[in-house]
């Protein structure tokens, strides 16, 4: 099994451009998450989804949008990129049973906004 797959692994954007980070998982997990990690810092939750068609904001949702049309896919959209969005983005999935379970992370997408 591939687990959680993120694309692209690296991307450089100019200020004001938009892009979508792709995330797909093949473990049939209901829960999916997007985190960002700034250098030397912890993980901040951007958005999460508890199932297809259901999404909710995390700690730092401003400047981002998500959708969840299928169980497998959870893309993250960056609109009007800003230097403050330079970060490493991790997608994760989990099969929660009444409470948060083990998170399976993708390899990360390193985004630089210049």
């Amino acid at each position, binding site marked *: 099994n591939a687990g959680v797959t993120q694309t692209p692994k690296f991307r450089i954007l100019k200020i004001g451009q938009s892009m979508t980070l792709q995330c797909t998982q093949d473990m049939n997990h209901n*829960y999916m*998450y997007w*985190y960002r990690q700034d250098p*030397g*810092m*912890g*993980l*901040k*939750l951007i958005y*999460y989804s*508890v199932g297809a068609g259901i999404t909710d904001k*995390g*700690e730092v949702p401003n400047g981002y949008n998500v959708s969840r049309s299928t169980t497998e896919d959870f893309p993250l959209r960056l609109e009007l990129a800003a230097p403050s969005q330079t970060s490493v983005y*991790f997608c994760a999935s989990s099969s*929660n049973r*009444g*409470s*948060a*379970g*083990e*998170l*399976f*992370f*993708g*390899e*990360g997408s390193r985004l630089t906004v210049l």
Partner: protein
Amino acid sequence: QQPVQSPQAVILREGEDAVINCSSSKALYSVHWYRQKHGEAPVFLMILLKGGEQKGHDKISASFNEKKQQSSLYLTASQLSYSGTYFCGTEPRQGAQKLVFGQGTRLTINP
């Protein structure tokens, strides 16, 4: 709401022990521990649920004191492979389904 980890960094020689603490100002239902090596994704270590349990595998164990809203991760007889940054993630209530992560503790093991 972000849990606070201490220490921020620790340097050990191989074979020494380490303790990493995670504290919250709010009530917790569960505490999760992850390890992240440089340039890689975090990897799950263990979950501790409300009830003051202890868990462990190999030479890494953890405890959770729900009354103090604290968890501690214990690494005994540390190995070079234990090097990395350790994060605790906290869940404030059952069913929250999401974690808030601490800022991390960087552990360096030298030969």
